[in-house]
């Protein structure tokens, strides 16, 4: 048998486990490491926050209203004497739940719709495109306002509204990624290997769309939080006195002009930090799901 000029038989077998690969990605990039550490912190707050905080986030104490940050009240107190620090930490669970649930919904629906449209094209594609165009014809935040106003002021409806405005991003991304691979050599080879269309799409083509989708997921988690907080800020969705970052900033805004900055600034900073964390996650998540990053 003819021998390859470039045989590399001496190469050791590569059997990196997924965990080892994740470890490798984290070590490679300190920014990713930082992002995952911050994510861990926020997840910790969401899970354990309500148990650990020093004060009841809803307990008012009129005598100690509007106190600036001190050793006792790290982030000061608000106009009703509630501890801002406790409220900020407790709010993490609600804000993360909204964004993760919304992104999961739009990821699932967008993937299915976009995958079908990208693979089969034709009328499915045409109909889907028309629908997405119509959704995208609204400024997204405005559409979310309309949806929440129409469906009613609840946390679930904020999740649905946020999911709806994010679906087009996933659907279009998946559609494009599937479409360019629909007739790629490996997809045709998979058909020759006895795979039906659905299996080729789900097992062979779709996973290749995951790396760019992970970047989208990370950006969208950030947007989703911003979106939910924005809706609360204008009085839609979550209602006071529930601790939520958007509402807290909205309530604190009234005191900014008189100099009581801590009411708005701390929840605002926390919100910013959360969005920032999600945005930084993108590259790391992408590298984890991309086998080409395995060396």
């Amino acid at each position, binding site marked *: *048998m003819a021998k390859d*000029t470039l045989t590399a*038989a001496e*190469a050791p077998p590569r059997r990196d486990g997924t965990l080892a690969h994740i470890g490798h990605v984290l070590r490679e990039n300190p920014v990713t490491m930082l992002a995952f550490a911050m994510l861990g912190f926020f997840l910790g707050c969401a899970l354990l926050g309500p148990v650990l905080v020093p004060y009841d986030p809803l307990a008012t104490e009129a005598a100690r209203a509007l106190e600036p940050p001190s050793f006792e009240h790290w982030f000061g107190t608000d106009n009703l004497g509630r501890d801002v620090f406790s409220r900020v930490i407790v709010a993490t669970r609600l804000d993360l739940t909204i964004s993760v649930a919304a992104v999961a919904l739009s990821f699932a629906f967008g993937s299915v719709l976009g995958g079908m449209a990208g693979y089969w094209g034709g009328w499915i594609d045409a109909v889907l495109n028309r629908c997405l165009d119509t959704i995208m014809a609204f400024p997204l935040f405005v559409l979310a306002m309309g949806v929440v106003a129409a469906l009613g002021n609840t946390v679930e409806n904020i999740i649905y509204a946020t999911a709806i405005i994010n679906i087009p991003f996933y659907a279009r991304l998946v559609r494009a990624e599937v479409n360019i691979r629909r007739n790629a050599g*490996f997809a045709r080879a998979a058909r020759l290997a006895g795979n039906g269309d659905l299996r080729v799409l789900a097992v062979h083509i779709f996973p290749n769309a995951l790396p760019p989708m992970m970047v989208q997921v990370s950006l969208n988690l950030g947007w989703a939080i911003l979106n939910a907080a924005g809706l609360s800020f204008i009085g839609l969705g979550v209602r006071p006195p529930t601790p939520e970052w958007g509402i807290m900033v909205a309530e604190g805004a009234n005191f900014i002009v008189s100099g009581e900055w801590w009411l708005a600034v701390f929840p605002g900073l926390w919100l910013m930090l959360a969005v920032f964390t999600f945005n930084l996650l993108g590259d790391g998540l992408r590298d984890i799901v991309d086998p080409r990053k395995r060396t």
Partner: protein
Amino acid sequence: MLQIEDLSVAFRTRKGEVNPVRGISFEVARGEQLGIVGESGSGKSVTSYALMRILDAGGEIRTGTISYGGIDLRRAAERDMRSIRGREISMIFQNPRAALNPIRKVGHQIEDVLLQHAQATRQDARAKAIEALEAVRIADPQARYDAYPFELSGGMCQRVVIAIALACSPRLLIADEPTTGLDITTQKSVMDLIRELARAREMGSILITHDLGLAAQYCDRIVVMKDGRIVETGAPQRLFTEPEHPYTRRLVDATPVVGASIRSLLPAEARTPEPAHRVQDHPVLEAVDLVKTYPSKSGPVQAVKGISFAIRAGQSLGLVGESGCGKSTTSEMIVRLLDPSSGKILFDGQDIAAVPAARFAWHPLRREIQMVFQDATDSLNPRDTGASAIAEPLARMGGLGGRALKARVAELADLVGLPQPLLSRYPHQLSGGQKARVGIARAIALEPKLLILDEPTAALDVSIQAVVLNLLVDLRARLGMSYLFVSHDLNVVRLLCDEVIVMKGGEIIERGPTAQVMSAPAHPYTRALIEAAPQPPVKTPA
């Protein structure tokens, strides 16, 4: 005119420094046509970028001198370099369409260069640009002046690129793989044009190519490069008849020329006797009146216009033609990935075209018709290891699993000469030749009766091509498969196929035993194809 001494180039990358060019020296005399030949990664293109000082970010010249007509190009100020580029030394590139600004009229792009080098004024720029288009023999230059690159064919775009390069009458032209991706007849007309213009203007040229045959035909002297070093320099005749360096010899051997045999492509020590394959009388597959029509804006277009042919059991049939002739559409229909608009495909007498392509995956004959794809990289799922790629058809259709599956994958890897440890690698961790082997192992996993080979070596270096072609010959004899070999390269088809079909414009224009078609083509187009192929000097029998 141009002298290069001890040139080295280094690139800083994230994984440390790489040295694509390591101390090379050569010269180009006035009016001389020099060829630089090497396989991918030999540093031949980087050399030309270095002497033009247009290296990508991170690259720098480490050592050496580049002297052009007494000017030290390595130390010249960037200002001076700008007036040398395009004015004294010009360059043309591969992939001509991408080499032109997509949103600027081609006439304006020529004017930009003329104005930059003060070869025209605002008033006469248009006239001179049209003159430049005329010089490269573009039909109707007046109208083409206003065209955008996307409105022109690949060959036309390359002519425009040449017009830009020659607009200011430089004294040296560097052509970096100028015909890669062009059809063979277009390649010939572009190369003839370059040679003719160079002679008429007494211009020197450097042709950078992977194709030794092409360089031999068009150059006075050839420099052979490998891994950033020059291994041999000499006249084409001498290189082909008496190559000194073993690498040159291997390259010469691997270049398919008239008179070569499939085994003679390999280095002398690897030449085992060619195994015979037995062609039987009954057809394994018959295509009857195959038609494929695509809808388009200006009405339906027939890509394949009712062709009929048969492949006998054990036979290798070549399907030859240039891009757009319908050969890919035909092979897609045969392999049942595409439904013909009308016509029959009889496999062992059974019409498999009656089963829609979308449902053929579950057809019992699916395992009998397999395919090796053109681009090995594209044909492997980036998320699957070599082993899982080979295992897929075995698991889906062969009913294998567990240890039996693993053993069969290992057996197949041995069969195609893929070292076992590489099986657990992902495609991006494999070389081009190794990926080709994985693709072949996957295709033969179920020992199909008919294997369709869609330009399986088009993306490979010639030395790897030689190995892969020989592998295919061995497998054919061993497993008794029939081949449908789709290619644009008659020289390769000649080595592998018993019979050949030539397609043009969706129709079969000539068919017959390969030797007969090659030596006495009946159709003028076949003759043009044969003549357009580079004809290097005949090598000495080794």
